[in-house]
Structure formats: structure tokens, C-alpha cells
């Protein structure tokens, strides 16, 4: 039995976005102590943060939605909650608590590292 977060790591690296013409940035994802996972995201996204576009830099909100759509196969509810992650999942951006980095509104840069740690099991 694996948790949703662990499942993330079991999928092979995703193909790049549907429209290869869109400029991409590369982000490293890490889940607990699992090996790092390299993904590509569009550098800029639409105003409503739902798809690639030219309105604003890509955000963590987009990343989480992208992960739910592309990386999580089942038990998405164990990871996501609304636009964000479930309470009890800690997020670090470049080794800093995402609560200090603007959480969902943080604008991702090339080579950023985002770590997800579940606190919800194992005592």
C-alpha cells in the first residue's frame, strides 16, 4: 500500500506539455526521502492559472493542479484539497517552508526544488 505522495514517484517522467512551442522551465520535485523527480512546466501561464499562456509566471498553484492532472493516478484526495494540498502535507520551496514563500502564489523559477512531505503516517 502506498500513499498518494509515494505514488507520485512511481510514474515515469512525464512528457512535456502538449504544446512544445511553449517555453518551459525545469523544476525538481521530491517526495519525502524518495529520489528527485525532474519535471517541465510552461514558463508562463494564463490569468486563471489553468493552462499555459502569456499572462503571468507559472505558480505553485499551477504546479499542484498539474501534478493532480498528470502525476497522480488514484487517491488524489490524499494529496490535494481545493487548489492546495491537504493539511498535514508540508511543502518546502528551495528548502524553505512554503508558508514563508507565498504558498500557492509563489512564482516558480528555473531549477527550483519543491519538496512534499506527508506528516500523516508513521509515529
Amino acid at each position, binding site marked *: *500500500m502506498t*500513499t498518494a505522495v509515494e505514488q507520485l514517484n512511481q510514474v515515469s517522467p512525464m512528457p512535456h506539455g502538449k504544446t512544445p512551442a511553449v517555453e518551459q522551465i525545469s523544476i525538481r520535485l521530491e517526495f*519525502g*526521502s524518495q529520489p528527485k523527480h525532474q519535471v517541465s512546466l510552461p514558463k508562463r501561464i494564463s490569468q486563471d492559472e489553468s493552462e499555459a499562456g502569456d499572462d503571468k509566471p507559472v505558480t505553485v498553484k499551477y504546479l499542484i493542479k498539474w501534478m493532480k492532472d498528470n502525476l497522480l493516478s488514484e487517491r488524489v484526495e*490524499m494529496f490535494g484539497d481545493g487548489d492546495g494540498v*491537504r*493539511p*498535514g502535507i*508540508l511543502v*518546502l520551496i528551495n*528548502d*524553505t*517552508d512554503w*508558508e*514563508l514563500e507565498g504558498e500557492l502564489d509563489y512564482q516558480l523559477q528555473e531549477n527550483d526544488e519543491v*519538496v512534499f*512531505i*506527508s*506528516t*500523516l*503516517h*508513521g*509515529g
Partner: protein
Amino acid sequence: MPPRLCSLCGTAKAIIKRPKTGTQVCKDCFFEVFETEVHNTIIENGGIFKRGDKVAIGASGGKDSTVLAHVMSTLNQRYDYGLDLFLLSIDEGITGYRDDSLETVKQNQIEYGLPLKILSYDELYGWTMDKIVSQIGKKNNCTFCGVFRRQALDRGAAQLGVSHIVTGHNADDIAETVLMNTLVTESEDTIKRSKPFKYAYEKEIVMYAYFKKLTYFSTECIYSPDAYRGHARVFLKDLEAIRPSAIIDIIHSGETFQLDEDVKSGMKALQNCLRCGYISSNDLCKACALLEGLEQGLDKSAIKTSQEGAGTAPTGQRTIPFYNRTAAKEEIAI
């Protein structure tokens, strides 16, 4: 955006927002305040330890007990508590789960230079959780595991000759217990227990392990994959998201809870289990009752086995070795 600076030292970049206080602190200050607060929990009200005490750290290989082992050995040296520390692990006999997590504990043993004792359900009760689940099924197996672990910890500690057990229960765990109204109002332990992390938030324990690069085992128990999905836990995390002090507030309400004298006098007096000598409020302790059900070959109905019974087990049944100790003195086990 310039990096936010630590609100304590004012110079280094803040890396965590503390849930308890809302303050932002840098890595070094975080380690220092976290460790100091645990030290304060240990020394409050005259202190939970005496110099020369032999203390067992209940170690599962999970995040809480791994951080506890690290912090206890750090503080014991820094503040010269003069404690003789041991690691005590219970092997429930869950293939693919506990055997892996015990490897983590063995790693801790090497890293901190602490002697390790592993006591298994198999040697104590003659049953592993694998065997129990194959007989009774997955439903309610946690009841067996919980009762067996509590007594196994006491017995393992007695074998080590320690006078005190510390466990990694954190503030979130304790608040959850208060919410679920399952405060143990009368101790059924024979060896004093303490929780140095009782005011430490789970988030900080996990962050501490992350930044200290401590290796811990984080897989759900295979027999209880949904245990952490409990409603109380989720409710607490939601509360904490709205108001971080909620956890401490709930613990505080639990700590000020007092039993009415009438209720106390109505509770059964503690005695010793007629069969194994362990502390009990009935003729048989919970573990002996559960074991009798298992030995009878009962399925999930084994859980309902009566705590009334004779000192001698029915012929042919295995029993728990006799244990000779009196109850530890604590009324409300927070």
C-alpha cells in the same frame, strides 16, 4: 523579493514559520528553540527525570521516535541530565512493515550509540500480528496490537531494568486523544511514562528531521492503511490551518480536566491479573483476555473475550509469562 530574515537572530534567512507562534526563524535558531522547548518540557514542575535514571526511549523507527532519540541524546549531553538511555522497540511481527522499520531503529542504535532491545509479540504472546490478522481478519486488529504493545513496552522496560519510558507522542497526537475523549484516566502501566514532545507540533518534528537529515521510516502500517485518515486527525489539521494555537488550546483543556470524586470512587480498583500478574482493573488483564480468545481459535469475536476468568488458563492454551510489579503512580496520562 529579499529573503525574509529570522525573527530571533535577525541575520539569517528564515526557513520555517513556526505553527505555535507564527514567527519565522532560521535553521540554527529553529534547532535551538525546538530543543530548548523540549528541555523545558522535561524540567517543568521539578523535572521528569532524576540523575542516574535509566530511561528507555520507545523507538518505532518512525519520525517521532527517531527525532526523540536524537533530541534525548543531544539534551542528555548538553544539559548533563546524567541519564542512562536505551532504545526499546517492539516487534509486532508485521512482515514488510515492522521488519523494515526496525532496520531504521538499528541505524539509530549505531548513530547515537544507545543500547537497543527488541521485544517481539511472538516471544511474549506466542503470536505475531501476521498470525493474528490471518485468524481474525483486518477489522479490529489494531485493538490487539494496541493492548499488546502497551504491555510489551512495560515488560521490555522491566527486562532492561529501566524506571522510565519516554515516547514520541507529539502535541497533535495528544490533542487528538483529548478530542476523541479517550483520555486514560487511570494508569494501567507499571513503569512511569513521559512524553517530552507533548507540546511539540508535528510539523516541527517533521521539519526538524528534514533539516537534520535524520532517516526515518514513513510507511503506513499494512494492516491499518487508513488509520491516519481518522476524522479527528483531519479535523485537527483543518483547525490548525485556521488557528495554529488550537492544538495547544485543546491539550490545555485536557490537562485541566479533573475527575469528580464520585466518578473516581466508582471506578474499579486496580489489581493484578490473576493469570499473568500484570496490572488490571479486572480479574484478567486485557492482554490475557485477548490471548485467550486467540488461543480458542476465535475469529473477530476474540475481541469480546471476557476479562473475568480464573488464574489458570484453559488446558492447552499458551499464556503470558508472569510479571510482578505494581502500578505506576499517575492519574491522568497526558
